[in-house]
């Protein structure tokens, strides 16, 4: 009911903002919040960070974030032995890596080796999925660190996209 009210209030479609409880543990539950950008838009991780910070989450509990799994679309660029994903239509970039701290215990395996191979074969425009570094810890401490300008992204999947 609250989800529906929120969606109506802010003109957000239900299928673009979904909360799912996993009930993995007895003591402290875990859940996932799925979100999609509206058509023609992208979601800013800076604003996500800012907005959660603005809710003034209290400390003293075990409440927090376990990981943030995202999909971004852009062009791959290799420089200084790093592979960077430059987001289409923006100045933003992700540094693509094979591992980060901010991942769940049952994290998917990195496919960074396969991505390097695809890049060497000339594939540049990609949709890349992975875990964003820095998004792990208890509220509100995890939010005290400002979001990285070029976040590290542990690559767990990718597909070539047509321009």
């Amino acid at each position, binding site marked *: 009911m609250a989800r529906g009210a929120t969606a109506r209030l802010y*003109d*957000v479609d239900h299928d673009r903002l979904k*909360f799912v409880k996993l009930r993995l543990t007895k003591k402290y539950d875990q859940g996932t919040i799925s979100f999609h950008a509206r058509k023609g838009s992208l979601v800013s991780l800076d604003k996500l960070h800012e907005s959660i910070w603005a809710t003034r989450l209290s400390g003293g509990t075990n409440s927090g974030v*376990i990981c943030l799994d995202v999909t971004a679309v852009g062009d791959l660029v290799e420089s200084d032995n790093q592979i960077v994903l430059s*987001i289409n239509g923006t100045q933003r970039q992700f540094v693509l890596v094979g591992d980060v701290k901010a991942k769940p215990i049952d994290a998917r395996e990195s496919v960074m080796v396969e991505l390097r191979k695809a890049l060497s074969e000339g594939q540049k425009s990609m949709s890349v999925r992975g875990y964003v570094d820095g998004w792990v810890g208890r*509220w509100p401490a995890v939010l005290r660190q400002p979001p990285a300008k070029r976040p590290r992204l542990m690559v767990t999947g990718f597909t070539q996209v047509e321009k």
Partner: protein
Amino acid sequence: MRHRYLAALALVLLATSPASAQVVRGVMTVTGAEMH
């Protein structure tokens, strides 16, 4: 707590800015006593 997360995310979805926007979709895994 749950309501706060949803409200925060809803605001973000509305307030997208081309200059700082980055992702087309995401899944945040969270935990907390408040979610019992």
